[in-house]
């Protein structure tokens, strides 16, 4: 099983990387770009447990390492 874990900044937390990228894209002539957000993705292959258990484990991983709850939201999507 493969899960993709999306780590995003919470709404309202400033995103300098996204903003700088937006500015650069605008300068390059992509005038229609209105917003860019930086998102980090971890692709995790997990075996030997049920999907339900795996999902629980990944939640734990997010809490223990992958995200900082003060600034991040996370989102788990199964891709395989």
């Amino acid at each position, binding site marked *: 099983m493969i899960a993709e874990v999306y780590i995003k900044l*919470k709404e*309202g*937390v*400033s995103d*300098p*990387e996204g*903003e*700088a990228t937006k500015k650069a894209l605008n300068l390059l002539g992509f005038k229609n770009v209105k917003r860019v957000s930086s998102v980090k993705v971890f692709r995790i292959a997990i075996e030997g447990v049920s999907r339900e258990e795996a999902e629980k484990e990944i939640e734990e991983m997010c*809490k*223990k*390492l*992958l995200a*900082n*709850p*003060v*600034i991040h939201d996370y989102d788990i999507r199964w891709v395989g």
Partner: protein
Amino acid sequence: MDIRVAVLRIEGTNCEDETVRAFRALGAYAEAVHLKQFYSDMIRDDEVRSIWDYHCLVFPGGFSAGDYVRAGAIFSARVKSVLRRDLEEFIKEGYPVLGICNGFQILVELGALPGFDEDKPIADEPQMALAINDSNRFECRPTFLKHENRGKCVFTRKLKKEIVMYPVAHAEGKVVFPRGREEEYLERLIENDQIVFRYVDPEGNYSSYPWNPNGSFYNIAGICNVKGNVFGLMPHPERAFFGWQVGREEEVFDGKYVFESVIDYLRKFY
């Protein structure tokens, strides 16, 4: 008494030598210790260490584990997995713990700062964050810091100057508290005397970039826990320890106070 300081490292830690040097210059015994020396089976006997061999632990600057995932996240996860109970005990006993730059990030990720709960010095999850600088760039520059601690922090008790100069060098140093609860956090920090350093301009005014190099909330550069024995700051006092490091004629400079204060605290305490 022989004061013993461990400067902890894993791969990517890289300010351990100058941090060790600062303690040694003041007569303490300090050494760089790899985290593995505390727990790993493969370490030979003569290199095995316990945190109880030391009176003070320091998480120095650098890019531990490459700052991958998030600055300090991996080092703190490793500490949590092998050292959590000992470290909590260590802090409860009143032994001092210092985090400089990457070390501050580690203490935040570990939940040891802001450290509001004296009985549970390491929170289950992070209570604050050190986010990417507003400039979206790594910033290596001198900063002016106003010392605002009223005596709680054991790392600045000998500091009599109001404003000091320590350089910063980081990409993720912006203090962020949970959204919507900033004021509540701030009140608690002020009430508990946990705010230690705030970024100011050369005249001592709270100011924006570049004087506040990362856009930190309330210009916060360094805080301590509620007990005053865990201290984290983004600027590097070990880079402003000697006058020659900052182009000054004096033999020692502002950075000295942090190390001197904790040594003095330990001498009195034990």
